[in-house]
């Protein structure tokens, strides 16, 4: 792909309910902040991509009403929706459009306003013949896969709880986070309500209202407009077969994320991710998934994820900080969640991540996760 870079990012303050703004206003909040961060005006934007899972709000073609909030009126605009990967896939679509030669500046905005719809209803519209009668949403499906992961790898509930503690504590440094607690403890997690064995409330991502945006620039523009752009080193997407029962030992194998990350590593020249990555913003919908992704992404050997979190390797001061922002566990406006991963990774390279900045960050990984096992991997770097 031709060179492109992220030159600005913006996020709303994510919360359970943002009834102080409409959906277009929520989107405007993130879009304006991203343009301010890039030092651009709305008129500088050549094309807009929106990311949203419309059934969560009970809507159709939401870009029609909400596009105005992303300054899209009178501009090329389209909406991307691929479940949980909507945000990362929209960012990748933004990379492609900015690299196409058709546009110099592409604004990507993801949003979700769960409080305005009924998320369980949206999630329940699965295959009407096969699993609609028995669906228990993302929660039940993760719980099933976790039972396999625990049986195979011997991961403990306490190790998983450490992921939630890291997330809540990191989120305390992030003004945009929906859930944060600088004093969170393993006991807090283990004592929180049991939702579906072995998932406790604090193991699971929340539903948030929120939006996030990135400004993507073509190579030449990026050099002109930014002293230190976050260059797109690699981007890969892999989709998977449609039923949970198709996927053998889902959390253990996750061939999509494995293949997408290996492809991205190869393109970006990464052979030792633990050493060469300065941070990762990964899409961890549940604590156990973060542990599983450590193994899939090659941060550790198979079966070593529990030790990695115990040793603090992925803590904010560790060798490879994972989700210094607090991750999906601390904020999850689904259509925006993937954009947040990429925006956080970019803000780290740009050196504008605030209190959760990783000093000297030069190479960052962002991942997306969706449906049963769809995956995106994006690598950003400080040099082309």
């Amino acid at each position: 792909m031709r060179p492109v870079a992220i030159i600005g990012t913006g996020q709303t303050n994510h919360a359970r309910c943002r009834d102080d703004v409409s959906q277009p206003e929520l989107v405007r909040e993130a879009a304006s902040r991203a343009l301010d961060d890039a030092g651009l005006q709305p008129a500088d934007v050549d094309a807009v991509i929106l990311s949203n899972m419309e059934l969560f709000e009970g809507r159709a073609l939401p870009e029609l009403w909400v596009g105005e909030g992303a300054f899209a009126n009178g501009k090329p605009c389209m909406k991307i929706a691929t479940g949980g990967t909507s945000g990362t896939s929209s960012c990748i679509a933004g990379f492609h459009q900015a690299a196409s030669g058709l546009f110099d500046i592409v604004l990507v905005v993801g949003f979700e306003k769960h409080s305005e719809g009924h998320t369980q209803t949206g999630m329940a519209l699965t295959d009407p013949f096969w699993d609609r009668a028995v669906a228990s949403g993302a929660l039940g499906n993760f719980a099933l896969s976790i039972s396999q992961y625990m049986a195979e790898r011997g991961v403990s509930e306490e190790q998983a709880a450490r992921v939630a503690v890291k997330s809540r504590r990191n989120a305390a440094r992030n003004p945009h986070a929906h859930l944060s607690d600088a004093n969170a403890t393993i006991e807090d997690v283990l004592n929180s309500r049991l939702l579906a064995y072995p998932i406790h409330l604090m193991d699971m991502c929340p539903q948030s209202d929120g939006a996030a945006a990135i400004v993507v620039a073509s190579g030449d523009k990026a050099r002109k407009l930014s002293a230190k752009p976050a260059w797109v080193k690699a981007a890969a997407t892999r989709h998977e077969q449609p039923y949970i029962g198709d996927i053998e030992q889902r959390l253990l194998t996750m061939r999509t994320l494995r293949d997408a990350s290996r492809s991205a590593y190869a393109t970006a020249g990464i052979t030792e991710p633990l050493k060469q990555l300065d941070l990762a913003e990964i899409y961890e919908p549940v604590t156990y998934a973060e542990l599983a992704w450590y193994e899939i992404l090659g941060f550790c050997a198979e079966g070593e994820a529990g030790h990695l979190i115990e040793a603090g390797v992925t803590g904010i001061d560790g060798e490879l900080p994972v989700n210094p922002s607090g991750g999906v566990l601390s904020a999850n406006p689904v259509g925006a969640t993937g954009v947040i991963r990429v925006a956080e990774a970019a803000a780290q390279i740009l050196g504008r991540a605030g209190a959760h900045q990783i000093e000297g960050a030069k190479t960052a990984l962002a991942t997306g996760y969706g449906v049963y096992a769809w995956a995106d991997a994006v690598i950003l770097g400080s040099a082309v």
Partner: protein
Amino acid sequence: MRTIRIAGVGETGPVQQDRRSIPEMVLGAVDLALADAQIGHGEIDSVVTASVDLFDGLTASNIAVTEVVGAVMKPEARIAGDGLAATVHGACQIWAHAYDTVLVVAHAKTSMAANGKLTQWAMDPIHLQPLGVNFSAAAGLQANVLAQHDRHAEKRWARLSCERRAAGTSGMAKKLSQSEILASEITTSPLRNGMCAPLGDGACAVVLQAGSNAGGPVLSGVGHDLEAHGLGDRNLVHWAGLTRAFDRACRVANLPPADARFDLAEPSCFYPHEEELFLRATGIDGGTVISPDGGLMAGCVPVVAGMSRLVAAFKWLRQTGNAGKRALVHGHWGPAGQAQAVAIVDGGL
């Protein structure tokens, strides 16, 4: 920018009701397109699909087609909008040098639910949806504005609908005379039932490939645009968004928008007044053949609509005597043409 060849196309419809499941129907279009392009699934680098969750009654409705479009362990992007927008994105992927061969697929089945009820959910829920406004009402309002100072509009639209219906071969559209159309039931005044493109089920697939124009028609320009949502915020008698999309596509194709000449135009017209808006917005005049197969008036599948026009243009350019000619393809979605997409297709050498 490298040349994008349209390597093959496939379409299933339109039919009033396709009794197959969504994946079976989509597989029909994909198999035809791959056979037409003489390639296998293995040669596809990336897939771009177009579908709308609320229309399909499925959350992330591309889950239903992942296997049949061949996206397992491959990149897939899903555009929730008209298939021509998905085509625009597929072209961007090739021009970006991200992929060399892209399969673009659009599908919808209006037989699954009342489309007029579903499109209400695309309207501003604070100001418009509570009034019961849907895409059909917005089109009626637009036609009414156009007819305000134009006493002959209704007759002209009836004649145009009659001609387009007569040219159709899909078997979906009833052949109706001008007077039958003028006597048909009013849907949203001044539009009548006989003026509305009949809605049905269908899927389209197109293979885009980096290559040369020696191998057949090429996609030489694309453009898209989103207008303001509020009907009062727009001048409804002009499709300004289409003019912008058209200008962008001409720029990509290195054509001066004011004197760009087209041998064929394939507009997406859900209603006859939209053809007049299309001509006005693009400046197309009498020298251009328009919708020789009846266009959408012969059978229309929302989401697939714009892509079905691309397939029609491609097939026309492949007919004997049409090599080297140029076609303008159009798609739109949203109330009164709020979102617009355009593609310019040049016949091969």
